[in-house]
C-alpha cells in the first residue's frame, strides 16, 4: 500500500527527522517515520492546519533526541563498541603471543663434526637468526592488529575487517608455507569476531526486555 502524501512542509519535517536519526537501526528509523507520516495524514484529514501540526509535534531536534532515548541507541552503541574494542585487543594480544611463540621456533639446525669425530647438533631459533626480513615478516600480523585500536569508530569497522582478512590469510599460509603461521589462527578468529559484531545493537533485544521486566 502506498504511504499517504503530505503537504510540503510536513514532508520537509519528515526528511529532516530522517537525516537526524541516521544512527538508528534502519527498521526502527523507518517505523518511527511511518508513525509520524500516518499521524500527520490523519491530522491533515481531521482539518488541522500545517502550522498547528508542526507546533504540536515540536522541533525535529527534540523528537530525534527522544527517539534516541527511547530506542536506547546510545547505550547499546557504547556497549557493542566496547565489545568490539575488547575483541580487537584480544586479537592483538593473541597475535603478539603467536609472534613470541614463532620467535622460539627452530629456524635452522646444523651438525658439526668435532675433532674427536663426534657430531654436535645445534639449533638456531628464529629470534637468534638475525634474519631481519623474517623477524619483521612474522611481526607483521601483530602490527596490523594495532591500527584499529588507534582510530575513531568510523574507521574502526573498515580497519578491523581488513585486519581480520589479513590475519585469516596469514593463518591459511600455514597450509602452504611455514606451519608456524597457524599460530596466528586464534588472533584471526578474534579479529573476525571484532569485525562482525555489530557496532550498534538493535534496540530492545529480548535479553534487555527480560532485564527490564525483571526490574519492574
Amino acid at each position, binding site marked *: 500500500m502506498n504511504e499517504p502524501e503530505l503537504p510540503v512542509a510536513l514532508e520537509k519535517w519528515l526528511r529532516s527527522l530522517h537525516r537526524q536519526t541516521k544512527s538508528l537501526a534502519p527498521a526502527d528509523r523507518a*517505523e*518511527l517515520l511511518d508513525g509520524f507520516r500516518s499521524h500527520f495524514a490523519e491530522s491533515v484529514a481531521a482539518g488541522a492546519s500545517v502550522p498547528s501540526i508542526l507546533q504540536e509535534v515540536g522541533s525535529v531536534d527534540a*523528537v530525534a533526541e527522544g*527517539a534516541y532515548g527511547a530506542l536506547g541507541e546510545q547505550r547499546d552503541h557504547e556497549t557493542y563498541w566496547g565489545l568490539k574494542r575488547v575483541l580487537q585487543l584480544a586479537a592483538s594480544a593473541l597475535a603478539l603471543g603467536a609472534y613470541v611463540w614463532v620467535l622460539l621456533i627452530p629456524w635452522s639446525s646444523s651438525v658439526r663434526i668435532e675433532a674427536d669425530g663426534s657430531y654436535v647438533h645445534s639449533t638456531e631459533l628464529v629470534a637468534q637468526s638475525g634474519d631481519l626480513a623474517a623477524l619483521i615478516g612474522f611481526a607483521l600480523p601483530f602490527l596490523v592488529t594495532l591500527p584499529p585500536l588507534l582510530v575513531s569508530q568510523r574507521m574502526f569497522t573498515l580497519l578491523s575487517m581488513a585486519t581480520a582478512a589479513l590475519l585469516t590469510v596469514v593463518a591459511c599460509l600455514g597450509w602452504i608455507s611455514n606451519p608456524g603461521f597457524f599460530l596466528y589462527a586464534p588472533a584471526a578468529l578474534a579479529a573476525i569476531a571484532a569485525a562482525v559484531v555489530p557496532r550498534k545493537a538493535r534496540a530492545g533485544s529480548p535479553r534487555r526486555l527480560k532485564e527490564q521486566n525483571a526490574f*519492574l
Partner: protein
Amino acid sequence: MVSGTQLASLRRGLVEYCVLAELDRGSTYGFDLVKKMQSQGLIAGESTLYPVLARLKANKLVESAWYESEEGRPRKYYTLTPLGRESLEAFRLLWPPLSKAVSTSIRKDDDE
C-alpha cells in the same frame, strides 16, 4: 533533584505498558492512540508515542502494518503480539505491589 532525563526514562518505561494495555483492547492506529493517551494524561503528544511504538516493535511486542481506512486513506495500525500480551500480563502482576511499595517508600513522614 530528579533530572529531566530520569523522569523521561521513568515515564517512558511506564508508558510502554500503557500502550500495550491500550492495544490489548484492540488494534488501533497511532493518531487514535495519541488522542486516547493524551486524554488520560499519559503522554504530552505524538513526539512521545512514536518512538515508544518503534521501540515496542523492535522488541517484537507490537506489530504494525499499513491498512486502508474507511475514507481510503493509508493508515498505520498497531497490534499487540503474543509476546506483548505476555509482557503486559507480567507487568499487571508486578505493578500493584511495586506501586504500593514506592508510594510507601516516598511518603512523607507527616502523611502517616
